[in-house]
């Protein structure tokens, strides 16, 4: 077309006008640390694996998950999910059911027989891992991934540590435990059962370049309770341990019809619920403080109460008789500590189970130069190394926070430190990005979607069998739950920045490749950052 001068123009010719020069602030894409990831003791990239699950690619999700944690099916059952407590979605409706999605992925992996891809490298180094609990398994897994040979020495006849000998079956079915351990063995982790290490330095002599200690805490703490000869006082560790050996109900520990459990932790709850399942008519937890102060997780307390377990708050056991115990009422003082009141009560009891905490058996560490212990805990540095070079430790023996998840995290961290140590380096964790706080997000964009409640085993069956109490999500629910993730601080390709830019200055790179700013035209208005649902864009002042 022969166009009249000046008044008629060629289409799109304004591209010659680079409006980027107007900018005083520039937008930048960032990946902030989602609060779930920040809270995960195992260092999982939860937002990262949920991203894949949201798209229905469960294997990719599982692989992203197992980059950090080799035990998702176990995690999905026994983890106390601090991630959910930290979840930003609580500010909208309820936390994302991360734990249930994790369990779905773990179960899916078992069902589908997904294996770990073998490590491409072989360092030729051998590392001894003492104990096959979560810390040891995690350390061995990560060491294997890093190309080292990991050999676990386990004193017990079966692997799993406290996951097997401390956690009741109704919380962690043993086929799940076995499956995830078997996968690790298939991956190349060597587990030597019934192999107790009684002297770590001697064991190291057997061609190992380093050692990771994860012996756990299997020795029950005792409290002095005056008891008659006929009275039956047991400890929780033993009761739960014996449950594992019991192939038939009549081989289970004899606790009687009326069982009193003394303590306020999760172990106390586990024992009480186990007693109920063994046929006890009454299972009573005696705890010296209040429910608010109880270390056990609230949902476990709730489940126990539902199952008919009663709890005597603000009570201590003064003495145990043949068929009853005497308790003393307590009262909290100004500082919240329980103080005796002098008021007593007798309650019937066939047995008393003490659940007052556990200690580690540190016998194998005698005479290790430089290694320090304090109040029964092995002291380690930030890289999980003890005072003795090459000797690392984690799990219950090295920390006060004794959960499976913490142990898995210790194992991973230690493996990376061991890897650095074997290369003659010092492990330096990568710097953490800033936290993706709720304030940095634009929650308007998330549609309303309350949490999917996992099916709970019918109450009668819960009281009489060791079947798993919490069910899993089916695929539909799991997908729904995964899609409740707000992807805090990390682009999830919602196209908002691309759409809301008044200057078309965002380039869409295609699925999985996110976006890029076109600074030739970006005027720096910041609408993209304001309207980014997940807070993955920040505005930075331009130099000069």
């Amino acid at each position, binding site marked *: 077309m022969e166009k*009249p001068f000046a008044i008629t123009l*060629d289409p799109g010719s304004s591209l010659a006008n680079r409006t980027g020069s107007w900018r005083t602030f520039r937008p930048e894409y960032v990946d902030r640390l989602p609060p779930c990831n920040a809270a995960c003791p195992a260092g999982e990239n939860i937002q990262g694996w949920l991203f894949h699950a949201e798209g229905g690619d469960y294997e990719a999700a599982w692989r992203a998950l197992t980059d950090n944690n080799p035990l998702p099916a176990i995690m999905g059952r026994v983890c106390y999910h601090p991630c959910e407590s930290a979840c930003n979605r609580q500010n909208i409706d309820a936390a994302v059911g991360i734990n249930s999605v994790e369990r779905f992925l773990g179960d899916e992996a078992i069902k589908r027989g997904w294996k770990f891809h073998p490590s491409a490298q072989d360092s030729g180094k051998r590392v001894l891992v003492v104990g096959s609990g979560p810390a040891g398994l995690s350390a061995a897994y990560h060491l294997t991934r890093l190309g080292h040979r990991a050999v676990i020495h386990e004193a017990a006849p079966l692997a799993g540590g406290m996951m097997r000998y401390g956690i009741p079956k109704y919380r962690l079915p043993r086929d799940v435990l076995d499956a995830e351990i078997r996968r690790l063995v298939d991956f190349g982790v060597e587990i030597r059962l019934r192999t107790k290490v009684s002297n770590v330095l001697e064991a190291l002599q057997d061609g190992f370049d380093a050692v990771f200690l994860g012996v756990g805490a299997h020795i029950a703490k005792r409290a002095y309770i005056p008891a008659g000869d006929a009275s039956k006082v047991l400890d929780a560790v033993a009761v739960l341990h014996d449950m594992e050996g019991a192939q038939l109900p009549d081989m289970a520990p004899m606790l009687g019809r009326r069982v009193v459990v003394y303590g306020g932790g999760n172990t106390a709850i586990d024992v009480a619920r186990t007693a109920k399942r063994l046929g006890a008519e009454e299972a009573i937890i005696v705890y010296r403080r209040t429910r608010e102060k109880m270390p056990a997780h609230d949902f476990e307390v709730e489940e126990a109460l539902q199952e008919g377990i009663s709890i005597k708050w603000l009570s201590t056991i003064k003495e145990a008789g043949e068929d009853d115990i005497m308790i003393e009422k307590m009262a909290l003082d100004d500082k919240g500590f329980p103080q005796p009141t002098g008021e007593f009560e007798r309650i019937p009891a066939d047995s008393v189970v003490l659940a007052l905490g556990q200690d580690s058996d540190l016998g194998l560490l005698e005479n290790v130069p430089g290694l320090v212990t304090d109040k029964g805990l092995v002291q380690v540095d930030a890289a999980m190394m003890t005072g003795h070079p090459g000797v690392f430790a984690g799990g219950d023996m090295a920390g006060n926070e004794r959960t499976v998840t913490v142990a898995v995290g210790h194992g991973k961290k230690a493996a990376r430190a061991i890897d650095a140590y074997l290369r003659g380096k010092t492990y330096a964790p990568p710097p953490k990005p800033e936290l993706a706080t709720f304030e940095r997000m634009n929650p308007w964009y998330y549609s309303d979607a309350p949490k999917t409640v996992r099916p709970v085993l019918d109450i009668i069956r819960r009281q009489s069998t060791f079947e798993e109490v919490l069910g899993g999500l089916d695929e539909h629910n799991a997908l729904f739950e995964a899609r409740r993730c707000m992807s805090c601080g990390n682009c999830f390709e919602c196209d908002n920045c691309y759409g809301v830019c008044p200057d078309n200055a965002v380039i869409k790179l295609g699925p999985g490749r996110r976006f890029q700013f076109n600074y030739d035209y970006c005027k720096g208005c910041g609408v993209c950052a304001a309207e980014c649902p997940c807070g993955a864009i920040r505005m930075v002042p331009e130099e000069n």
Partner: protein
Amino acid sequence: MLKQIEGSRAVAEAVALCRPEVICAYPISPQTHIVEALGELVKGGALAPCEFINVESEFAAMSVAIGASAAGARSYTATASQGLLFMVEAVYNAAGLGLPIVMTVANRAIGAPINIWNDHSDALSQRDSGWIQLFAENNQEALDLHIQAFRLAEELSLPVMVCMDGFILTHAVERVDLPTQEQVDAYLPKYEPRQVLDPREPVSIGAMVGPEAFMEVRYLAHAKQMQALERMPAYAAEFKAVFGRDSGGLIHTYRAEDAETIVIAMGSVLGTIKDTIDEMRLPENGGHRIGVLGITCFRPFPHAAVAAVLKNSKRFIVLEKSLAVGSGGIVATDVRMAVTGVGLQGYTVIAGLGGRAITIKSLRGIFEQGMRDELERVNFLDLDRKAVDKQLARERTIRRSGPIAENLLRDAGVVAARNY
């Protein structure tokens, strides 16, 4: 085909033969009969395909024409007087965008005082709008000029205004020769726009142009319009070849070859002037050597053609139906520019404002005065000097002298008296 019909009807039929594709209509006297006739042709199916749009104002009429023309349709509308002024912003815009719209202006005075009768104030107010302006002397020429107007407009991509005297032509029933569709089709090619809104080749029309290019845009508008000075005679010649009669062109002369005095005018008054001159040239009336120059194409102004006619005369008298208030004649100004340096005596006669009858008697009187060089530079034909003097005196003596038009009417005894 010869037909005895009203001028408006003749124009409407000529426009219809040009196959317009969009016509917008808004009623205003004395133009209304044209669009009424066109509306009937469209609604009855005689003119198809064509969209006839009843708009809500003249401003919309021109705006619809702008849109239609920019989208590649042959577009037509008609207006007059206040209507033309109401659409002025769009009139300039159509020219600025270079859209070949053809519009009939049935010339009428502009108010206040409101007046529906003929003069050229309306069209001449738009002399700088960028439109080509053609003035018809009679209904046959009005008819013919519309056919030429489409040709010219579309070739140059400029809008063309065909001006015809309101009532005098629009409402006069005369015999006209209506061409056939075949003739018009042979003369007027299909509209091929120079620029068009087309999704296959998108452009932005109507950009904002700043000081860096605005002068050039205006210059090009001028240069393009000046091209019409060459095209008009050529199209008139072609027209003669197809239709067999002289019509259009830049100017017409009558008995000017030997004239010492040349009367210059536009539109239907040329007929009266010719009659007057014929009378004056009679030996018994003195055998005055007086001739006529009729301007058909007022914009662009044919300076060279006018100068060529006048160069052998002694004087010219511009008789015009318009007044540049505070200056004098409008046409006269252009004529004087055309003969700059030639040293002719020139007079302006303002005549026929608001439909005032222009009689042979009055014309003869003022022409004879002119030939005796007794005229002022600017003269008002048949002005009631007594009435204006009275009003001027009134304004000198009374502060609240009242509305002029009503005063004059009262003085003339048209409305009931009321003393001031």
